[in-house]
């Protein structure tokens, strides 16, 4: 069984699961874990979007 993900959906899934693990392992309290997980998720996806637009500008 194979699966085909687009670049963005692969980045989304990657960001989601990596953020969950980072949140759990890098903070002490539940509240801090959730906040840090959301922060990592936003940074991952924000980084993807910024890098994507930067490459688009470079290519022009």
């Amino acid at each position, binding site marked *: *069984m194979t699966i085909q993900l687009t670049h963005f959906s692969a980045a989304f899934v990657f960001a989601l699961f990596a953020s969950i*693990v980072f949140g*759990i*392992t890098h903070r002490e309290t539940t509240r801090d874990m959730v906040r840090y997980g959301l922060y990592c998720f936003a940074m991952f996806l924000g980084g993807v979007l910024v890098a994507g637009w930067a490459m688009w500008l470079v290519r022009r």
Partner: protein
Amino acid sequence: MANSAATKTKPETKTESAQPSAMAIIAPVVGWLIPGAGHIIQKRWIRGILLLVSIGTMFVLGLMMQGHIYKANGGDILDILGFIGDLGAGALYITALAMNWGLGAIAFAIADYGTKFMIVAGLLNFIAVADAYHIAIGKKQ
């Protein structure tokens, strides 16, 4: 009175110091074999299940994207690094090797993503193992 209290508390202290040392070995080993199990055996149920689902899903998605599994005798330094990453997934990696999954060449971009998914799943499990160890020694709640 004071002496009897002291003799009563002494064995308890010994028991408390012996328990974390055993768990400090068991939790990382179990956590490496089954992602999240190091947390689950220390009664961190939700954290353990979330780690299991996250790391397990990443690894399985990597396989489904036809990612490549690295073996120990890769030769190339990048292959060895890939092997170390893959190895972190524990039983998932051993099962994939035993079933001859993920041995194809990386033929297209999605397969390359899948390869990275599996490496990162293993590396994330290394972090989870370290976290389970920190819980076992009392460094983290």
